[in-house]
């Protein structure tokens, strides 16, 4: 066990993997000399050199595609995309190539690629740096998608991703980077398992990534009001650990899904539908969702905060179920 920040945990996982496996390398915009837009790869250029810590031009589509090609060619690339909004420039490569190649080639080729990207709002970066499009990626068969919400998961899920034979997209909520916590040592985490972050009997709060902290604060507020909330951190969006969700709902009989993404067509809708399909009889109230407001993310602080789920809005949604 070591105490470190989320940012350091991601870095330590990359360093550990690169020391253990010469096939692992990192590329992306400003990951080298600059040390990473969020300082995640700070110091790695000095340790591993420019062949393995590769600064790329501002060519998202091509450096992601090059990551796919390098994975096909026997490497284990980690590709960093500065923010999820920028990943849209590389969607062709992710959706049309990374996700399809194994199937389209009849199983001859796999793409063991790890794509890391910062996601989420809360930093007053307005409408082209703040969105939560995790659900778009989770929609796509052929890729796996996970959102580490804790320091331990930042390390553990990255190391687990590097063991996967298929492309994995990791979403790092940008407000989590300075978060401090314990980074566990030991066996790599298994992909696709949700985590119970708080036990409770009255309602299941289901969330992931940057919304976990607010959801736990909401649970504390609810406890003061006599409502004991269980908090499930999905960790992996694809595959989705429905077993853990159903077990929790069977126990609490109520579910509220919390995410920063827009409600319409969002991942919360998918979780909600899974609960209807798999745990309908356990429900004592309709499934509720607390999501981002249906606006491009505004700059002004009061507007941005109003656009994001907050502990108070989560509490209100829960109270509406009783």
């Amino acid at each position, binding site marked *: 066990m070591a105490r470190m920040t989320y940012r350091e945990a991601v870095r330590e996982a990359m360093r550990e993997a690169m020391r253990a496996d010469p096939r692992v*390398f990192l590329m992306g915009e400003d990951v080298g000399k600059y040390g990473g837009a969020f300082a995640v790869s700070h110091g790695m250029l000095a340790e591993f050199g420019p*062949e393995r810590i*590769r600064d*790329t*031009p501002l*060519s998202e*589509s*091509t*450096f*992601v*595609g*090059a*990551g*796919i*090609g*390098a*994975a*096909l*060619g*026997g*490497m284990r*690339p980690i590709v960093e995309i500065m923010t999820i909004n920028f990943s849209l420039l590389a969607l*062709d*490569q992710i959706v*049309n*190539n990374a996700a399809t*190649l*194994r*199937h*389209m*080639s*009849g*199983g*001859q*080729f*796999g793409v063991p690629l790890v794509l890391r990207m910062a996601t989420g709002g809360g930093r007053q970066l307005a409408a082209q740096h703040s969105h939560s499009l995790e659900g778009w990626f989770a929609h796509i*068969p*052929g890729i*796996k998608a996970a959102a580490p919400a804790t320091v331990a998961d930042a390390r553990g899920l990255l190391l687990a991703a590097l063991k996967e*034979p*298929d492309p994995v997209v990791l979403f790092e909520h940008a407000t989590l980077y300075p978060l401090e916590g314990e980074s566990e040592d030991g066996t790599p985490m298994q992909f*696709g398992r949700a985590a119970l972050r708080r036990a409770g009997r009255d309602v299941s709060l289901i969330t992931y990534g940057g919304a976990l902290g607010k959801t736990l604060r909401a649970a504390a507020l609810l406890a003061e009001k006599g409502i004991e909330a269980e908090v499930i951190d999905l960790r992996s969006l*694809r*595959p989705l650990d429905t077993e853990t969700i159903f077990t929790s709902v069977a126990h609490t009989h109520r579910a509220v899904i919390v995410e920063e993404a827009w409600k319409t067509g969002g991942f919360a809708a998918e979780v909600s539908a899974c609960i209807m399909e798999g745990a309908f009889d356990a429900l004592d109230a309709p499934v509720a969702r607390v999501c981002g407001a249906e606006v491009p993310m505004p700059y002004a602080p009061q507007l941005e905060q109003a656009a994001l789920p907050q502990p108070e809005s989560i509490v209100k949604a829960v109270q509406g179920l009783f």
Partner: protein
Amino acid sequence: MSIHKTAVAPGAERGHLLALLRQMLLIRRFEEKSAELYSAGKIRGFLHLYIGEEAVAVGAMQALTEEDAVVATYREHGQALARGLPAGKIMAEMYGKANGCSRGRGGSMHLFDAGRRFYGGYAIVAGGLPIAVGLALADKLQERQAVTACFFGDGAVAEGEFHESLNLAALWRLPVLFLCENNLYGMGTSLERSESQTDIHLKAQNYNIAAEVVDGMDVLAVESATQRAVAQVRRGDGPYFLELRTYRYRAHSMSDPELYRSKEEVAQWRGRDPLSLFDACLRGKGMLDDAGLKALEADVANEVDWAVAEAEKGEWEPVADLERDVYASVAA
């Protein structure tokens, strides 16, 4: 504009030259049979024929070794055949059968063969270029001497990925051979209607990539230009770019009414048919006569018949296996 013309290499072996002719003939007859089978409903989906462009794939492939990698487009039957994929596995793939080279998951546009480092047909125009850059990066990082040959059409030149990929390959001095098959049309839009600069090799030169124009109807010109280019790439001098000027005789795909070009233009290009040109070249050298050609045709016809038989007798993948090969393990 300078077009490299290469006379028959002195001392070139008759056997080699006849093998080139045979490969071009095989592609031509395979494609003609494919068109027939498409009309008969045996092949479905999209079908993009390579007829007219045979000299490009056949000439270029001669310069590659087994260690080299190939990335192609949705018009890739010619490259696949020239790379040595069995015609039967390609035809079976177009039938959608489980014995196809992609187990019936790809069809005409997505042919793959791991053993031959044939990394597939990409149907998003220019989508294969970044993949080729990455394959070359992997080879370089693992200190292999391999070259990645990346085929694409003139239509790709308008895409951002073309420019990004040329830049990155040149910047990192990666062993990529860019092979632009300039057949003058991106589907139905002619080059001059889509590009402000129609001399494509000049674009590559602007990225500090050695680039030249080659007569893509002359198989020996393609072969010798590619040999030169591959030698330079293999030396570690970074990427090389060949603009191969060619023409597709058939429609873009089987559903194209060809409203955008004249019959005269097609006829004019057919006058420089790569097979006829090479046939005449070989006869001029006393290496081919009517009987020789007839024997080659018969041999090729047998191979095409065998390919169709393989496809016909292939099994359909059971529907129970629908979700196979989405992930390495089924559960996900």
